[in-house]
């Protein structure tokens, strides 16, 4: 395990330790694996989307309002997360904390509306066991939601560490990695928004 540290002020804090550099690279590769994971879930969803058995069609239950709120919350959270990392680069712990907490708040809001939406679907008679199409929907969107949930806990843990230890090469690498994760979830959501909701609604109404 190499342990070289750089003190060049032009190097971002999170890249200054060898461990930080390795962890960030490793996390990028992990995101590659996550792409494969979500790609598989998307493919599964696409294959099953018309197999609705006796249940309702997917687009039938989708609601534009809830969808737009969720999308707005998550996209904004990605932006605030970016601001947080920007503040971190300026060594502004307070700014970092503030923007990250806002990010978490937006994430929680997203989750709230997603759960509401799921409950609504279940109320309308569509749950994971209704048909292959709904199984595909709940598992794809649910996996994304589970990732967001995990992300909220994870970011919280990292923020506690930043609060306790301040910004060091170690903590900043952690913040940076969680931010990569958060942006990634945003990207996945854009695909869900398009491939699941928009296409579902277009196919049903159009």
């Amino acid at each position, binding site marked *: *395990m190499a342990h070289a540290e750089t003190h060049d002020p032009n190097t971002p804090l999170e890249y200054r330790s060898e461990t930080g550099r*390795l962890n960030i690279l490793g996390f990028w590769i992990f995101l590659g*694996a996550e792409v*494969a994971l979500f790609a598989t879930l998307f493919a599964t969803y696409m294959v099953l989307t018309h197999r609705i058995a006796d249940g309702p069609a997917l687009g039938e239950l989708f609601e534009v309002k809830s969808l737009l709120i969720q999308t707005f919350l998550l996209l904004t959270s990605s932006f605030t997360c970016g601001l947080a990392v920007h503040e971190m680069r300026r060594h502004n712990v307070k700014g970092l904390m503030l923007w990250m907490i806002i990010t978490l708040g937006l994430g929680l809001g997203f989750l709230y509306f997603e759960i509401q939406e799921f409950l609504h679907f279940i109320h309308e008679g569509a749950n994971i*066991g209704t*048909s292959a199409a709904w*199984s595909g929907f709940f598992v794809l969107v649910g996996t994304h939601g589970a990732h967001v949930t995990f992300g909220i806990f994870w970011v919280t843990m990292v923020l506690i*560490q930043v609060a306790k230890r301040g910004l060091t090469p170690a903590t900043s690498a952690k913040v940076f990695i969680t931010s990569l994760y958060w942006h990634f979830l945003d990207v996945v959501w854009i695909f869900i928004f398009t491939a699941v909701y928009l296409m579902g609604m277009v196919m049903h109404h159009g």
Partner: protein
Amino acid sequence: MKWDEFFVTGDPMIYGADVSIVLTMVGILFYLTRYKKWKWLWTEWLTTVDHKKLGIMYIVSAVLMLFRGGVDALLMRTQLAVPEAKFLDSQHYNEIFTTHGTIMIIFMAMPFLIGIINVVVPLQIGARDVAYPYLNAVSFWTFFIGAMLFNISFVIGGSPSAGWTSYMPLASNELSPGPGQNYYLWGLQIAGIGTLLTGINFLVTILKMRAPGMTLFRMPMFTWSSLVTMVIIIFAFPILTVALALMSFDRLFGSHFFTLQGEGMDMLWANLFWLWGHPEVYIVILPAFGIFSEIISTFSKKTLFGYKAMIWSMLLIAGYSFLVWVHHFFTMGSGAAVNSVFSITTMAIGIPTGVKIFNWLFTMYRGKIQFTTPMLWSLGFIVNFVVGGVTGVMLAMAAADYQYHNTYFLVSHFHYVLIAGTVFGCFAGLIYWYPKMFGYKLNERIGKWVFWLFTIGFNVCFMPQYFLGLDGMPRRVYTYSEESGWGPLNMVSTLGGFMMGIAFLVLVYNMYYSFRFAKRETTGDAWGGRTLEWSTPSAMPPFYNFAKIPEVTGLDHFWRQKQAGKVEKLTAKDIKKIHMPSNSGVPFIMGSFFFVLGFGFVFDWIWMAFLGGIGVIGTLIYRSFEYDDGYYVSVEEVLETEKISK
């Protein structure tokens, strides 16, 4: 599930297994206590993050699994030796071929190779450890726990019996009720996490931890093959993760991905399974190719022929491996166009593979070939693997495959590639790097017996199966009629199987014999090696591998140094303090929680799975808050270890 049905009962063989498991456990506990080995076990092994020790633990586990899978194989061969045999009933036979396949691929072949990669790759690239030593321990323990979870199925709850491919809807609740299939799902799922982490870990290790001067095109071929394998793992394993999760949802939470009800789609499982499954085949063959490349070059005393072609062909194979999965079910009726395309892509894999064969042959051309046991296994590989290769091309021809599919022709083909490729590779690698791991060689004379017994047994076992296949014998039947005429060839095949079993026992005896009597190596270069792992002064490298990180100037750097008579000698002023990662018990504990989680899901006891899940998350949080930067090995300690005076 009723409590009195918790343990599998009613079969004398299983009682025998119960007794031997209990006796072995008691024996181990007694030994550890009697000789006060508990602390040694904990500090040296259970908490280690040293890649060499983790590698050895992988290999030991894999050899145990080879034994288990081998016993399964011999039970099957015994049942099939004569027509209408009554040795096993259908259910029992189905369980055995399911566990045989699953164990051999997931818990034997892969960990065996990952074990060798663990031991060798950091040494070959001149690194002190992997990029994430802690994560490496997590990988091992999740693999190990997955394997244990899968293996206890045959005494608790019953083994899975839907085949290692677990096609739906056969594997659904309606057609395969009970915990058996859940063991398959959770054993593989937990072990799969470890494999994915290994993929990331070694990819970063190889990309970032190479010694100065070792450019990508100066890396040893085994390291190259590991790099390519890791890339395949990273893109293939998430597919398995999803597929297993979806089937688990079907079985536990009533979803309808692959079920008969709710318009589920059984073909989707087959596609997902093989989208992972075919790359998996290359995950277990490419490292073996790498091993053969090292060995053939070493014992021909010659540079590898066509180094760059070897790399490009491997990259081509890796790419193709994701484009051929449909050939596992040409008979699904996907239409002529689809079958034609996948026929051609599959045959095309033969091209780079053929190139590799010729490059190996021409590595020996103008060489000085020494017939050591690793070299014998490598030559055996070439001769036997080609048979698997050409029959693979035959199977790739979709129109003909309609006749081979689901028969012993197929069974024989994949054993020819997986045994002559992967298993020969594992044995060759194990013997070749044995002195690196344990400080002495395995006895060569006994080793040659093992080679000939195994290779001849292998051909006697599997060659007849090609003909059985052409004679219409389907795979996975537990018996056959007298009139079928398959009796004699099956008997021959069974005899060959037992020969391989004997060879395995002789191999284990050789380990014992060599442990007792083998001459200990005095240098680090047991075979006249070419790559950096042989450049350490002591036979077994110390825990920090290299007192001084070597500087590499070309391919086969160590060999060229030796040829030029310029092997650097370490002096006291080369030594600086060395940074190393600390041991940790957390990976082991995390693995144990995974076991609780998996076991809970197997029996549909959600409370238990929940507790296990909490435990896993707890260990993750603990790790997140732990700021352990490792420690420094002092100059004095290094000097002492290296036996250099000041």
